[in-house]
């Protein structure tokens, strides 16, 4: 007897739909590896806010951080660019400077820090004090537009699409008996397709959406003999998908839209993240 009540709450009669009409699809995603791209508007707005904040910031209390007469204090003082102080008999067309603690109170303060360049080759991993050069956010796969690579489009979520029955779609598997959960069917099916050198993390056992087919066409309402595809979500953690004799692609949301059937996208588009 079933006592579990999950998302589905409506009471129902026991199903009598043959198991060969149930399939399960896996939305396998690669989560972003680097932070998202900042839009032009956001970047400029943040810059404006940062400049306002700098303008309204209190003067850097040098005496708090540097003891008077120490070498550090002298070095710090030496590299600062102090503004020109007000002087009797000098005309300042942009207004008389108002210096307090070596800062013109009318403007933001520029604090220069000693830029100690570390020596050595940045690729020399033995050298602990090697200079830091960040890696490029654009990878080799981006340049060659290798759609089968997991290293493309680092700031985006990528989804695995395969070509099954001449159509691009999420990998879909037939459910054979009702003793195995849908996500487990999908995960094991994925390994049969692309080898077991892959580590995935199944989000949940409950399906994220359902697509109904009648005679190969996507329909909204279920009639007799309708094939159901339950979409399960999963993330790839490590390893790779290397199928034999099967086309596959790792695509971002808008690329998925360009490749799959428009009707199919209508059913799955909202499940994909930007």
């Amino acid at each position, binding site marked *: 007897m079933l006592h579990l009540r999950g998302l589905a709450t409506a009471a*129902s009669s026991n199903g009598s739909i043959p198991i060969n009409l149930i399939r399960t699809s896996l939305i396998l995603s690669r*989560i972003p*590896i*680097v932070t998202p791209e900042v839009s032009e508007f956001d970047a400029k707005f943040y810059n404006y806010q940062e400049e306002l904040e700098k303008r309204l910031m*209190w*003067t850097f209390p040098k005496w708090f951080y540097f003891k008077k007469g120490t070498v550090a204090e002298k070095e710090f003082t030496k590299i600062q660019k102090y503004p020109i102080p007000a002087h009797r008999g000098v005309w300042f067309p942009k207004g008389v400077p108002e210096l307090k603690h070596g800062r013109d109170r009318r403007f933001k303060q520029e604090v220069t820090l000693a830029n100690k360049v570390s020596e050595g080759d940045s690729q020399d991993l033995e050298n602990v004090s090697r200079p830091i050069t960040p*890696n490029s956010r654009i990878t080799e796969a981006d340049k060659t537009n290798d759609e089968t690579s997991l290293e493309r489009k680092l700031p985006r979520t990528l989804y695995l699409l395969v070509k099954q029955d001449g159509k691009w779609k999420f990998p879909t598997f037939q459910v054979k008996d*009702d003793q195995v959960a*849908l996500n487990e069917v999908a995960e094991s099916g994925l390994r049969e397709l692309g080898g077991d050198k892959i580590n995935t993390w199944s989000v949940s*056992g409950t399906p994220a959406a359902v697509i109904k087919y009648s005679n190969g066409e996507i329909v909204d309402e279920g009639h007799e003999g309708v094939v159901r595809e339950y979409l399960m979500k999963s993330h790839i953690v490590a390893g790779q998908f290397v199928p034999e004799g099967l086309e596959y692609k790792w695509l971002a949301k808008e690329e998925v839209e360009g490749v799959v059937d428009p009707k199919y996208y209508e059913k799955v588009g909202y499940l994909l993240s930007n």
Partner: protein
Amino acid sequence: MFSRLARRQLPAVRQLQQARLKRSKAGLNPDAQRVVTQLSVMSAGRKMPKMLKLCNEDYVKHKTIMKAWSVRRKEQIREEEEVLKKQYEGMKEASEDLKRVNERLFELSNRHEYGKRFPLELRVPTEYPARQVWYYDYVRKREE
């Protein structure tokens, strides 16, 4: 007469000057200096920047910028909520459908997964990628 007088007064003058010179050269004693430094650290007036006064045009421009930002943000939040709502509806529809189609599979899908944890291997997005972008050489653990 004058020179004699001046000569007579000279040592006293020199003494006074020397004393003043000495005082200014030595500066404050360390305790007093510490008090001055601490007061300087605490005093707000000397460290605060001048008040930011915008002319009317720039004030209106500033208002426009902030308004555009908030309208944009509101719109983004609205879109996100819409997508979340759709996703919830999709889950609900699929679950109800599964329950109708096959109760056994529905039961399995809602079974509690004991000890399920978020995988530590999933990395948090960083500003720049690591030297090795993706870990390919994964070997499945031998099951006992």
